[in-house]
């Protein structure tokens, strides 16, 4: 049978089921699948089907659509009010909020809603986690077993029970984080925040991932260690679909299975999980066992006041203009080696289910400062600033963060230079909150343009033909760890400019160096690079994230301007 006959029949079936056919493309909530352009003949046939179908009575929408629409408007206005607070005076931050994603989140099935509600009520939990490693032929090996205690304020204790780390313990008590290693007889001490490496299968983290996911789909019922569970498929914004099992009794996740990548797959299970009122306080007490040495991996020392900080650092700390009710001052620290002053805050509320963390950072001018190529550009007080959505994506140039151990959580950074200092806002919150808190604290105008669809300078003189299938394949290989440079617009621009300069192939050194590239615009989805190299016949390279529009999406060159 002709494939077009089958395709048009499938198209009719989709409409009959009241589902969006794949041919109708991708929407801003991430549903649907982008497909290649169809032939004109097939387009006509699809139009014809829809035209004939207008003879049929239209299908009523779901009963709660009206409520959903009103809810979306209220959500938007709520977030708009927050922004207006941020913009008062001369402030002019422009943010296109992906509220549609938020509204989609609200439509993600009862099981997810139940899980969010259950987590909200969870004060603390205690469990045993088993980590199983699976190879491509299905052979399973227990990689480790660990006991975890965690509470709603983000404190946790992880005791390794089995596996190569057996006996080791990691604790974060909100004031400090430490790692006890009995083999080495050492206790390593770190800052409590930013803690970019927490523990695998942390329940709050899992739920946040689901809320941020593109798609969540129920797959049916199952049993995990004799507990009835619902299996769901989660498609994150960056990456492949993985599976999660939700305990029907507690509505909490109890098992996660990663997709097979490079012939390796992991299954992590709470073989035991109990909700508790609190974690025994003695578990959070810091002590160095007898015979152990203490290694302070943190260069930070707590100071009692800004006056003391000034004395220790030799420069005047930034003036705090406003003290918000939502911010609770935790402590101030100095790092006298790197000349860094930090003020730690706990964030209460701020559109979040659990408390967040915020750090205001000030550092003496450093000539090695340079913007990170993958960051989104904006301004603070008229100075160029950068927003890095996830510190785990790019640790280069960033000031002393935690080690890579276990799983990471999203911690974002806004930083810039002003009057001889480098400043930073660091937090496990979204960009709006980060901007709002930071600008109110120190009275700076903060302006970032995120995904500005109407950016009118994005008009290349020459278009580059894009092979979307090839780009999709490249995205997959980048997802599995290959060609990470495709995530760096400066690198992509340097390669493209080199190819344009040397169309017959690059011999010897690349004619356009990475250093010759300056990213002059980057809103996270679109970017423009200017070529500084004198050999280049190309002046500007225009790039866009065509396959996935988040920090894991690859950059594709879509056009360029030639040197006049």
């Amino acid at each position: 049978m002709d494939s077009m006959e089958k395709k048009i029949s499938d198209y009719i079936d989709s409409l009959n089921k009241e589902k969006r056919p794949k041919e109708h493309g991708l929407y801003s909530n991430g549903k649907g699948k982008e497909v290649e352009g169809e032939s004109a003949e097939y387009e006509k046939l699809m139009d014809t089907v829809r035209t004939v179908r207008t003879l049929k009575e239209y299908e009523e929408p779901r009963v709660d659509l009206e409520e959903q629409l009103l809810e979306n408007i209220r959500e938007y206005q709520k977030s708009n009010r927050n922004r207006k607070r941020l913009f008062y005076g001369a402030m002019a931050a422009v943010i296109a909020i992906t509220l549609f994603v938020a509204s989609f989140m609200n439509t993600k099935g009862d099981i997810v809603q139940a899980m969010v509600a259950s987590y909200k009520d969870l004060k603390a939990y205690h469990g045993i986690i088993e980590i199983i490693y699976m190879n491509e032929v299905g052979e399973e090996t227990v990689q480790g077993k660990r006991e975890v205690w965690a509470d709603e304020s983000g404190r946790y204790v992880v005791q390794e029970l089995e596996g190569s780390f057996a006996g080791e313990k990691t604790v974060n008590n909100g004031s400090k984080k430490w790692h006890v290693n009995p083999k080495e007889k050492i206790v390593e001490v770190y800052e409590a925040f930013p803690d970019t490496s927490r523990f695998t299968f942390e329940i709050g983290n899992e739920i946040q991932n689901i809320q941020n996911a593109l798609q969540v789909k129920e797959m049916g019922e199952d049993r995990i260690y004799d507990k009835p569970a619902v299996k769901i498929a989660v498609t994150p914004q960056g990456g492949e679909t993985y599976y999660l099992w939700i305990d029907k009794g507690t509505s909490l996740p109890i098992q996660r299975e990663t997709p097979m990548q490079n012939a390796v797959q992991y299954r992590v299970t709470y073989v035991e999980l109990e909700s508790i009122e609190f974690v025994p306080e003695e578990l959070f007490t810091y002590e160095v066992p007898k015979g152990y040495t203490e290694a302070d991996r943190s260069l930070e020392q707590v100071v009692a006041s800004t006056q003391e900080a000034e004395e220790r650092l030799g420069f005047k700390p930034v003036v705090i203009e406003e003290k918000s009710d939502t911010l609770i001052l935790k402590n101030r620290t100095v790092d006298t080696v790197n000349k860094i002053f930090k003020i730690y805050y706990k964030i209460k509320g701020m559109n979040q289910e659990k408390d967040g963390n915020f750090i205001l950072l000030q550092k003496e001018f450093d000539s090695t400062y340079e913007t990170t190529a993958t960051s989104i550009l904006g301004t603070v007080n008229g100075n160029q600033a950068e927003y890095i959505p996830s510190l785990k994506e790019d640790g280069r140039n960033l000031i002393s963060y935690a080690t890579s151990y276990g799983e990471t959580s999203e911690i974002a950074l806004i930083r810039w230079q002003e009057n001889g200092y480098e400043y930073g806002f660091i937090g496990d919150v979204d960009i709006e909150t980060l901007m709002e808190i930071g600008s109110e604290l120190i009275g700076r105008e903060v302006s970032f343009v995120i995904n500005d669809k109407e950016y009118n300078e994005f008009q290349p003189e020459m278009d580059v033909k894009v092979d979307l299938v090839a780009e999709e394949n490249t995205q997959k290989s980048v997802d599995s760890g290959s060609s990470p440079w495709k995530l760096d617009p400066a690198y992509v621009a340097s390669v493209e400019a080199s190819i344009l300069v040397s169309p017959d192939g690059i011999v010897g050194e690349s004619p356009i160096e990475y250093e010759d590239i300056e990213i002059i615009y980057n809103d996270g989805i679109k970017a423009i690079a200017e070529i500084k190299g004198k050999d280049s016949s190309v002046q500007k390279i225009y790039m866009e994230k065509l396959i996935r529009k988040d920090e894991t999406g690859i950059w594709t060159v879509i056009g360029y301007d030639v040197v006049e």
Partner: protein
Amino acid sequence: MSIKRKEVTKLEINEEISLEKMCLDTWKDLYQFIYYKVQNKEEAEDITQETYMRVLKYIERTQPTIENQLGYLKVIALNIIRDHWRKQKKVGSTLQIEDVKSECLESEDFSNAMINQAWIKEALQSLSIEQRRIIELRIIKGYSAAETAKVMKKNEGTIRVIQFRALKTLAKVLYQVEESIR
């Protein structure tokens, strides 16, 4: 429909209540309009939501006075549909909200449903009885290929072949009519 920019607008005065009211007043008609275009509930619901989000952003940015709210929303909805479908078709252009004339919207609106229906029914007459029956079962009644095969006492493959030929004939007739109208 016309859209004017003013320094102070009704929407600004009581923006929040007005927006909710606008939504309550218009969403059913808007949904129906979008459904008419996309012919499936899932997509129509999504585009309805996206349309209001876009209008919120547009109002916030330009503060226009909107005299014909539904017409305004329909233009935005059409642009959303075109934006996404254009990725596949690589044709069509975005309607600028300020530039939209009422007659342009009318032609997109298919508001005269009676004329349209008569036009489609006439086009169906160009099919053989068997083809017409299969198109009615598959598209208007919403039967699956298997159900249609059972009713027509044919196999599914044959149903798909007849359906395909019927659609090609219909497309020819409908596009011919459309072009002669232009």
